């Protein structure tokens, strides 16, 4: 299955990755090969198999509605590359 350059661009945009023209070409080849490899799975007869989303076999794992102390403000912000007014700072985005 051949991925087009536009499809690669789209995926890169969704993944928030800036790609150079050279990378777009290289990744479209590599990703196409990966898809071909995974494609082999389609040969397996699965029409009667339930899809597996979770391998633990567990269900209804829940907790009671109780609180425990949170991180301190200082701890919470300790990994922030930039902060301002006790908030994480990032490049401007429009509210939507």
């Amino acid at each position: 299955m051949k991925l087009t350059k536009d499809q690669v661009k789209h995926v890169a945009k969704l993944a928030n990755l800036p790609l150079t023209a050279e990378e777009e070409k290289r990744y479209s080849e590599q990703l196409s090969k990966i898809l071909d490899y995974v494609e082999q799975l389609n040969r397996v007869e699965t029409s009667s198999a339930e899809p597996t989303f979770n391998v633990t076999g567990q269900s209804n794992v829940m907790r009671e509605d109780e609180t425990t102390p949170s991180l301190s403000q200082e701890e919470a912000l300790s990994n922030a590359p930039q902060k301002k007014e006790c908030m994480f700072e990032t490049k401007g985005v429009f509210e939507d």
Partner: protein
Amino acid sequence: MKQMYEPIIGLEVHVELNTKSKMFCRCSADYFGKEPNTYTCPVCLGLPGALPLINKAAIEDCIKIGLALNCKISEKSLFERKNYFYPDLPKGYQISQYRWPLCINGQITLDSGQVIRINRVHQEEDTGKLSHLGGVTLIDFNRSGVPLVEIVTEPDFHDVASVRDYAKKLQQLFRYLEVSNADMERGDMRLEANISVHPIAIASKASPWRLPDYRVELKNINSFRFIVAAIEYEIKRQIEALEKREKLTQETRGWNEDKKCTFLQRSKEEAHDYRYFPEPDLPELRIEESRVKSLESSLPELPWDKLKRFAEEYGISKNDAQILSETKELAEFFESALEHGKKHGVSIKEVANYIVNRKPDISSVLPTQIIEELKGKKVGIIESEKELEKLAEQAVKENANAVLDYKKGKEAALQVLIGGVMKLSLGKADIAKLKPILEKLLKS
């Protein structure tokens, strides 16, 4: 002949639950007005390796909302990741529900009798709060991970009055169920509308009937007034565009309250591709029939059922029944007053009229006091000048601010003092005689 158009509107309502802790971690969900980034942990900050754990109370609240809206509760329900890059979510995805929502296929009946179909009621998490400051964006993650329930209707609305009625009914329901304070100004409850219009001829002639091939999404509107204004504006804008034979496209618009118009936020080209997939860190939910039954029996009498019962059982007008069932607290006050009234020969009508017309502050007045007052009226009125003087002096003492206002020339302040005397006398003071006594007292 003039072409007529019919608006087609679907609504999405988001409501923040008032659970103690967040949806997937034990941080407090009571974030409003708190110091930024003081209610966070590795889970709601999206730190690597942190694992979510489902809040049982939130799931129960979501099911309660679904049941109250006549939904079918899914036997199997799954969370999924909704992937997008936006700094309000630290993980790069929101944990939400997509193909396996908790509740599906419900309905609600509006005052007009129109039935609105509910597509789904699902559980998700709220995002962090962004503020935009001089070219940069600041993030407070206190709200990140607060339980959020989304209620989605089918496109069944055709006018703004129904939209307003529906939104009001949901707000009342959330408060009756005590799952949320549903305060729009605080952002507990948010509205989104999908709007398109089509020429009516198409709907009547062409079969099968189908939806227009575009819809405009109005997002993040936090007041009933604004949603009504925004939808009205949007209907007008779209009809004008169709009249000019312009092609309308899928887009997201916001509401500008200052300019009283909607504005483009995102066009189709930028439409999101969320790549939902089942959340691998959360095992599926299996909701047993017995669990549903016990949640169903835990529901309080719903507002519309109460309204109906008040009108039928007490023979009061629908309008009065609506006022008296507005909040669960007022409804309880009313029924408790009726109980006392019965013992003292005060009729249902007298009690209902009193509450509807006088609007007593139920946080400071007891139901029994109302009955005392109504009973007192029958027994007799205080006419003795001496007694009225005593009461007036007491009221003046208790309402120092009103006295000041009156002395500054605000005559309306006298009403406050009359009210004070009425309260002290349980409504038995003769107002005609009281007025000159109060005025004399204030001038002295």
